[in-house]
Structures are given as structure tokens and as C-alpha cells.
């Protein structure tokens, strides 16, 4: 069933595209984190308007399938005067916007877990709201939500398989191309699945360890 020489021949191609998948996933996690911190703190704002704005963002970007979001961004950007956006940029924008909505909910949980007394103390010490966010709330929230953020990374790596629809040669697209040329669907797609497992299973293990570590420390 397996044609090993052929598999080995295709291996370098897949390894190259694995890099693309990892690049866009990490980029999306980074940008999504920034969006998540902003939207997450909007959700906790004392102003009802800002709270609703944050809620609307989360509702929209979590309610629409990622595939549809990616298609929308890909076709929408040229309409607002950005005709030559590369697939890579479109993919990263799409993934980041969606990741931002999920990370916002994670960060909201993290922010809520920080004792209010700390913020009062920071206010008395003369820290501005921005300083409080960057120096006090975000570092602690990240530590508390690290397992959830690792999980988000796994979700992003899986979600990035959809960027092939905007024409980016990621891991999935490359395997598709290989399969289209050699007709060895089973071995090519099993190989593809293997690649995803190879990244995601260690990540899931890491997430589990972090969670246990966190539980022991807070207990």
C-alpha cells in the first residue's frame, strides 16, 4: 500500500510547506493575542458601549466559519483599494482576526482572575490604565491562561489548513498537489495527518503539563 521511495522523495516538499504552516500559525497567534488583549479588556470595560463593541466582535468572528472569513477577506481587500495583497497576508489577517475573538474570551477569564486589590494598589501608586494593563494585568493573565493559549495554538495550526482556499501553499495544499500528481491519496494524506500529529500531540502534552503545574501551584 505504501510506496516508500515516493514518500521519501516528497518529504522535502512537505517539510518546506510545514514551515509555511508554522509561520502563519505563529504570526496569527501573535497578532491574535494583541487583538485578544484589546477585545478582552473592552469586554470588561466600565462603559456599556465598549462592552457591547467587544461582544459584537466576538459574536461575529466566532459565529462565522473560518473558511467563509478567509474567502471574505480575500475578496474584500481588493474592493477597499488593496488589490495586490499576497495570499500570505490575507491568510494571516484572516487567522488573526478569528484567533483574536477566541483569545479575547481566554484573556477575559485571565483578567477576571486577578485580585481587584492589585489594581486599586496600582491606581494609588499612580500607574496609568495603560501601564496597569501592560505591566500588571497582561503578564499575570498570560501566566494563568497559558494552557488555554497553548490549546489555541493547536486550534490555529489545525485551522491554518483552510488557508489553501486563498491560494497559499501550506502543508495541506502541498499534500493535495502531491496527491493530485501521483494519485497515492491514502499514503499522501496519511503522511499529511502524521505531520499535523507530530506538531500537535507534543503541544497538547505541553499544554497538559502546564495545566497540571498551574493547578499544583494555585491549589
Amino acid at each position, binding site marked *: 500500500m505504501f510506496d516508500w521511495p515516493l514518500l521519501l522523495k516528497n518529504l522535502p516538499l512537505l517539510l518546506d510547506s510545514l514551515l509555511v504552516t508554522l509561520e502563519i500559525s505563529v504570526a496569527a497567534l501573535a497578532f491574535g493575542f494583541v487583538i485578544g488583549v484589546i477585545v478582552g479588556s473592552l469586554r470588561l470595560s466600565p462603559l456599556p458601549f465598549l462592552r457591547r463593541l467587544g461582544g459584537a466582535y466576538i459574536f461575529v468572528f466566532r459565529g462565522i466559519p473560518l*473558511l467563509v472569513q478567509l474567502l471574505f477577506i480575500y475578496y474584500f481587500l481588493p474592493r477597499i483599494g488593496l488589490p495586490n495583497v499576497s495570499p500570505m497576508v490575507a491568510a494571516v489577517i484572516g487567522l488573526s482576526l478569528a484567533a483574536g475573538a477566541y483569545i479575547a474570551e481566554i484573556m477575559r477569564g485571565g483578567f477576571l482572575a486577578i485580585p481587584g486589590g492589585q489594581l486599586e494598589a496600582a491606581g494609588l501608586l499612580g500607574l496609568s490604565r495603560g501601564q496597569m494593563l501592560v505591566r500588571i494585568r497582561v503578564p499575570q493573565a498570560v501566566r494563568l491562561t497559558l494552557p488555554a493559549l497553548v490549546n489555541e495554538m493547536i486550534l490555529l495550526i489545525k485551522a491554518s489548513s*483552510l488557508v489553501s482556499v486563498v491560494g497559499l501553499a501550506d502543508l495541506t495544499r502541498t499534500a493535495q498537489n502531491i496527491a493530485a500528481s501521483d494519485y497515492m*491519496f491514502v499514503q499522501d494524506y496519511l503522511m499529511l495527518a502524521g505531520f499535523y500529529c507530530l506538531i*500537535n500531540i507534543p503541544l497538547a502534552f505541553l499544554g497538559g503539563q502546564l495545566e497540571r503545574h498551574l493547578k499544583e501551584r494555585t491549589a
Partner: protein
Amino acid sequence: MIFDPSIITDHLGDIGEGFMVTLGTWSAGVALGLLLGLLIAVAQLFGNRLVRAPLRVFIEMIRSTPFLVQLFLVYYGGPSFGLSLDPIPAGILGLGIYGSVYFAEIFRTGFESVARGQLEAADCLGISRLQCIMRIQIPQMLVIILPALVNLVTILCKETAVLSIITIPELTMVLTGIGSETFAFVETLLVLCIGYLLLVEACSRLGMLLEVRVGRFMQKQPR
């Protein structure tokens, strides 16, 4: 950017059909996922090591690979195992398999959430095992797991958009098709976004109603 409604009204019939395909694959996938998930959960809780170990591998594999890759394996790889399916059955099977491992996890936590003491008490009162499952375990477990179930069902609703890649004529496929015919991509995709938002919102509203319905007995409990 001017929105031209005639693009949508001209194709209402096609869009309606696509919507029905989305609803059909979604509900069939959820039903299959629930069934497989319950089987996996029961096998994990009550099976011996020979059953549990391969199941663990299966669960890990499904959880760490994208849904799209699983679909490719079922649809394009299936024929090599003598499983030549049309796109729609392949899509339903894929969706069911993908959902099953997550459903299984929910069921497992549900079964574990019912206190052992209650089962012992039921045994002492002469209640049969089946009665115990139907009257004691499932009602309590349902209240606990229903939010997670509804959440997963809405996630699966969104995953049906991916089915368009294996050429299933559901909502996404139909509307992007109209988009490439008329070059009105933004309009058609906007309608598509609103359609999914409505579907997801309807699903979570329905879930909330259900949560109230199955949680009724909680209020009736004596203090």
C-alpha cells in the same frame, strides 16, 4: 461598494437548496457523532485495556489533525479501502467521526460527574441498573453537559462550511458559486456570513431553551 439585492433574489431557489444541504449534513453529522461519541465514551469507561489503547490512539489522531485532512482521507482515501462514497455521505461520515471524539469527551465527564454515592443508594433501594441510568444518571448528566453539547453542535455547524471543499453543494459552495458567476463576491459572501450568524445564533438560543427545560427538576429539589 453598492449592494445589489437582485444577485441574491435571482438565486433564491439555489440558496434555499444549499441551505437544506447544510442543515441535512449538519444534523446527520451531529446524529452520527452523538452515537459514535456515546459508544466511545462507554468503551472508554467500561472497556478493558485492549479496547482502550487503540481508542486512545484514534482519539489523539482525530483531535490533532484538521477536519479538512480527515475529510480528504475519507473522500479521496476511502476508495482504496473499498469505501467509495458520494460527497454528501463522505461529508456526513467525516463530520460524524470528527465530532465523535469531542462528544465522547463530553459524555465521559458527564458520566463521571454523577456522584458514586447516588448509584450505591439506588442499588440499596433496589433500583435496577437500567432504571438507574435512565432516571438518575442521564437526567443529572444532561443538565451538566448540555452547554458543552450545544457548543460542540454549533462548532459542527460552522465546520459544515469546509464540506464545500469536497464539492458538497451546501450554503458556502452555492454562494461562492454564485459569486464567481456574477463576480459579486462581496455581496454573496456577506449574505453567507449573515446566514451562518443567524444559524449559529438560532442554535445557541435553542440550546438555552433546552437548558431551562432539562434543568427544571433542579428547582423542585427539596432543600
